[in-house]
């Protein structure tokens, strides 16, 4: 075990994956010798050469198109999009190509070797274009998995699973926690299964669900609620698509209450999808309406960032409202 921050854990996963197979490639804007703007790929060029970890020209649609082609050829392509906010020029390649490659060809071809890494989320004074959480756009598209870790241990295990999963994966990295989140991480290879949520803490009164950076907010809110005597069950969804319906519904059947928190704006967000499924499967067991604590339906603002965020106080208030319903 070694103490790592989230970036170091990601770097370690990339390092191990590249050491394991010669046909694992890592690339993106500034990801070569410089190691990426957040330094997630630092040291990889020195170790594996500039043909395996390299800079791309500044063109996101090109990066993902190239990655689709490379993955369809049988290699493992790990493409970095510098910020989640800049993934949209590649939307066509992801939605119409990546996600449909296997299905449209009747499994003659696939891009299962593709992993798209991208930092996402706010709380870093990044304004409109360095703060967004675009998971819901992609969750609406069958054929691509979406994964996001909450801490360094999870990041390494989930990323290694994502890289070698037989399906293309969008791996969203909570950049607010890149250096802020640290923990003990095994130095060797290990994996955490995709599609399986993690019950972070067991409880009996209410289920509190989130993913990625929002888990930090959730855990702070739960701490406060527990001081009030509320027993909270905390779940990290880990994989947004395909999501672990079983773990979430089993928990809600037990607690009868659910608070879901996401960073992205509330309308059309993935929290809504979960709420719809849970009310369908747990309707008669619900003690209160399912609460969503999310961003407001405005572009991510700079000067009102603190007010905008679905922070621990808002989650705490939602837990209280649900308990007192």
């Amino acid at each position, binding site marked *: 075990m070694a103490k790592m921050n989230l970036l170091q854990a990601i770097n370690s996963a990339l390092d191990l994956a590249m050491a394991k197979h010669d046909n694992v490639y890592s690339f993106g*804007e*500034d990801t*070569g*010798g*410089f190691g990426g*703007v957040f330094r997630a790929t630092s040291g990889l060029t020195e170790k594996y050469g500039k043909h395996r970890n390299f*800079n791309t*020209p*500044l*063109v*996101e*649609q*090109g990066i993902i198109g190239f990655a689709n082609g490379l993955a369809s050829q049988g290699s493992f392509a790990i493409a970095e999009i510098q910020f989640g*906010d*800049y993934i*949209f*020029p590649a939307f066509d390649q992801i939605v119409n190509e990546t996600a449909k490659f296997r299905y449209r060809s009747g499994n003659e071809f696939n891009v299962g070797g593709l992993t798209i890494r991208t930092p996402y989320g706010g709380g870093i*004074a*990044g*304004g*409109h*274009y*360095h703060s967004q959480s675009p998971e819901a756009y992609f969750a609406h598209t069958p054929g691509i998995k979406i994964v996001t870790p909450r801490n360094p241990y999870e990041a390494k295990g989930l990323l290694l699973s994502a890289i070698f999963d037989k399906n293309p994966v969008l791996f969203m990295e909570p950049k607010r926690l890149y250096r802020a989140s640290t923990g003990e991480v095994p130095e060797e290879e290990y994996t955490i299964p995709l599609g399986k949520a993690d019950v972070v803490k067991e409880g009996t009164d209410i289920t509190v669900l989130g993913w990625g950076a929002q888990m930090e907010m959730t855990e702070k809110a739960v701490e406060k609620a527990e001081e009030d005597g509320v027993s909270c069950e905390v779940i990290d969804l880990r994989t947004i698509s395909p999501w672990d319906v079983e773990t979430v519904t089993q928990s809600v059947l037990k607690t009868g209450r659910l608070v879901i928190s996401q960073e992205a704006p*509330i*309308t059309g967000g993935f929290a809504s999808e979960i709420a719809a499924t849970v009310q369908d499967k747990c309707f008669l067991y619900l003690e209160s309406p399912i609460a969503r604590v999310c961003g*407001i*339906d*405005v*572009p991510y*603002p*700079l*000067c*009102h960032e*603190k*007010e*905008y965020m679905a*922070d621990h*106080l*808002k989650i705490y*208030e939602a837990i209280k409202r649900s308990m007192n319903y």
Partner: protein
Amino acid sequence: MAKDKKHNTEIVTKPKWFDKDSVTIPMLQILKEDGSFHKDADMPEYDKELIVKIHDTMQFIRILDERMIAAQRQGRISFYLASRGEEAESVASAAALDAGDMIMGQYREQGALAYRGFTVEQFMNQLFSNEKDLGKGRQMPVHYGCADLNFMTISSPLGTQIPQATGYAFGQKMDKTEKCTICYFGEGAASEGDFHAALNMASVYKVPVIFFCRNNGYAISTPAQGEQYAGDGIAPRGIGYGMKTIRIDGNDVFAVLKATQEARRLAVEENEPVLIEAMSYRMSGHSTSDDPTGYRTRDEEADWQAKDPLERLQKWMMNEGWLDKDHVEEHHAEVKAKVLAALKESEKVPVPHIDELINDVYDEPTDMLKEQLDELKEHIRKYPDAYSKTSGRLD
């Protein structure tokens, strides 16, 4: 030689390959690095007043940049992007335009905005995201915009403004405005699909647009030559799209002025879109978030320091008797004092009222947004200390 009339192309009977050396594009330079003119150069239209204004604007921007980088290091603003080394490009090109021409920038064209008359207070209000900021504090520092000065608000995603410039210029042409649009972008952004769409459409529609590429050698850490592109820079792409194209020394005020004056004439009088590739060097980091020592050498920076556009212009102006050391020093002191005073003043101005959070998403806030705002205010009232920037005035 036979000719295929349908495709207007000559027929050859042996393979004839073309490569990047088939077309060699020279670089226009009028003012040499030593501060003297090339003897036979075609000169732009200029007079003392114009050159002094260009100089003073370049000096202002350099001082503003220096001071705001320091302010970022002190934690007073969150972020900054300097244009050091590229002031001639933005300032002298803006000087070649009409005040009614539209400017669409990337994010390193504060010089053009200053030339148009954006005040030091306006710069500061944006940088501090306060309630006097025209953009209502919503965007990161340096994302300026001003409708009165025909300067389109900056957007961080790269290259998005390039096809927008084509569309804007199409409207200018159809409305018979006799104005044009200038669109600035870096050589990195020219890799985006938007760049190619923009140039192609501008050529097809023949619109009055000037594409001004600031080739400053780096896209964050990625060097232009060999990693951003393998060809001869950006200029040959203009020819590929059937567009008038020129390459210029971006550190030479007179070359920038000359090329942009001619480009404007072509754009406005003949509806010819134009591509200008200005060769320069980003003397600062990409932004305050990166350290160039991680990807380039001090020697390389020193080579470019010797080509500095402001010092080069000052040498010429002093020889000409249009500038003396006293003016440089006095102007420097005056600007610095103004910048510091504005900085201190803007810092004290509060952030916009929380009601501004939901304005401008649409022309009118929706009922759902109003409800979300009411809930937010109720929450802030419960925890005023946690939201101290806005909790003091919720009504």
